[in-house]
């Protein structure tokens, strides 16, 4: 948590959980509850107004389905198994695509990170390629690979590739020179240097690159599916769109959002666990 410029830094005693205390940044479970309730006000309010507007027909159900309609659509789809099967298709694509992208990014990133000559030769080209918004290449990919599975996986892989490549490269190239000097002074063998200095220093950056790669990969999945597919959540959405079933479209949107968040949080958790372990070792 960054330093807030309001309030003193001291912990106030536990007596009154007042709004003032909350605003001053004091902390105990009373203020935590208050915090939770206050932040929930806006979304709850929005949902209530939304439902009311739909029920009283102020807004056409065709344009903006009510929360209950969306919920019903969700229940229908999941009970009929349709949701699960499309969901699995999407997930499968995402996993293959992301891992393909990450795999190549790691190979290239590590190679260029460790071998200076190759870095100077190849990286400038990568920097040039990076400038192209990866989604802008979608028409080209579709032209080359058609509308099938392959093109989608390629689009996802491309989305995941660059963040991973960049972080890997940067982590390896920007290792604290002070640590490099320690390794020289202690006459580390190249292998020891790799395992005790390079890899541990680079891992945090690579992990955060992985996290970004997954996020972009997921985003690319959404785009790839919406651009034209015969299966997957995206297909579900475009099919529903043409059949005037906006509730289903909403379900799709929510699923994409929730999954995106779940995946990101899991990786964040993984990151924290791995790095905690390393901090303990290095002291």
């Amino acid at each position: 948590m960054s330093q807030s410029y309001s309030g003193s830094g001291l912990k106030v005693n536990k007596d009154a959980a007042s709004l003032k205390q909350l605003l001053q940044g004091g902390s105990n479970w009373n203020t935590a509850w208050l915090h939770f309730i206050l932040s929930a006000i806006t979304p709850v309010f929005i949902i209530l107004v939304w439902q009311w507007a739909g029920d009283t027909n102020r807004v056409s159900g065709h344009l903006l389905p009510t929360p209950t309609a969306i919920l019903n659509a969700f229940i229908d789809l999941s009970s009929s198994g349709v949701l699960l099967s499309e969901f699995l298709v999407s997930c499968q694509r995402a996993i293959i695509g992301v891992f393909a992208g990450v795999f190549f990014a790691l190979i290239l990133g590590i190679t260029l990170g460790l071998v200076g000559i190759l870095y100077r030769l190849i990286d400038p080209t990568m920097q040039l390629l990076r400038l192209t918004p990866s989604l802008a290449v979608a028409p080209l990919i579709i032209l080359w690979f058609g509308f099938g599975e392959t093109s989608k996986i390629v689009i996802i892989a491309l989305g995941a590739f660059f963040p991973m490549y960049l972080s890997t490269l940067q982590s390896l190239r920007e290792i604290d020179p002070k640590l490099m000097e320690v390794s020289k002074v202690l006459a580390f063998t190249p292998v020891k240097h790799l395992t005790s200095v390079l890899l541990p220093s680079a891992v945090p950056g690579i992990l955060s690159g992985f996290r970004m790669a997954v996020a972009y990969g997921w985003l690319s999945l959404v785009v790839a599916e919406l651009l034209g597919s015969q299966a997957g959540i995206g297909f579900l959405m475009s099919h529903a769109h043409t059949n005037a079933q906006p509730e289903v479209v909403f379900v799709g949107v929510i699923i994409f959002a929730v999954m995106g968040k779940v995946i990101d949080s899991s990786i964040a958790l993984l990151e924290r666990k791995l790095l905690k372990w390393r901090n303990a070792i290095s002291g």
Partner: protein
Amino acid sequence: MSEKLLEISQLSKRFVTEKKEVIALNNVDLYVTEGEFVTVIGPSGCGKSTLLRIIAGLDKQSSGTVLLAKEPITGPGIDKGFVFQEPRLFPWLTVEKNIAADLSLKDPDVRKRVDELIKLVRLTGFEKAYPKELSGGMAQRVSIARALLRKPKILLLDEPFGALDAFTREHMQEVLLDVWRTNGTTMILVTHDIDEAVVLGNRIMILKPRPGEIKAQVTVDLPFPRKKSSQSFQEIRYKVLNEFEKIEEIAWGEAGAGI
């Protein structure tokens, strides 16, 4: 003439953490007359910075009174100039704009005063430099000039030279003494360096920790410029060092060997 500018009586400050209560300052009594230069010295944890911050109005005392020119202190303000341990300059302003801060350089009075101060702290030629181009000592000088621009009743310095190397520190002490003798501003400087406490000022307050209290007071009436090699200097230094060691023995005995 010998007005009591600052009067502190029965000042106490308690910090309450989840586990226990820490008494940072315990019934401290102290006064400073106008035009004095007082240095406050003590081992870490003795509450000297806390004392200074309370005088500045940055923190509030738990009990006791602090009167500046007979008025209780209600909060920070331009009547109490403060110099932190770090220069804390605004990185996006030039030296002269940092000194002027929110006052306009277009005002001829401000302009004149800023120019005088730049000369006083020996930074002529660097008016348009940015903080990133300055060394630590130079940045601190800007910080001092900034504190003095508004003609404060009292200037408070919290270990201002602690982050500087020995040579720069000596130079800065010279500059500060210059400022004091030219301006006559009342000053309270907190330090952990015994030499610094003896070189500057005419009264040394020695604080002891846990709880923070004034243990001793040493008057320094050596003429300026003070030479560290002179015997009278060393005598006073010895007096202070003695008090220090007494405090540390007690502190060590209480705390055991853990640092």
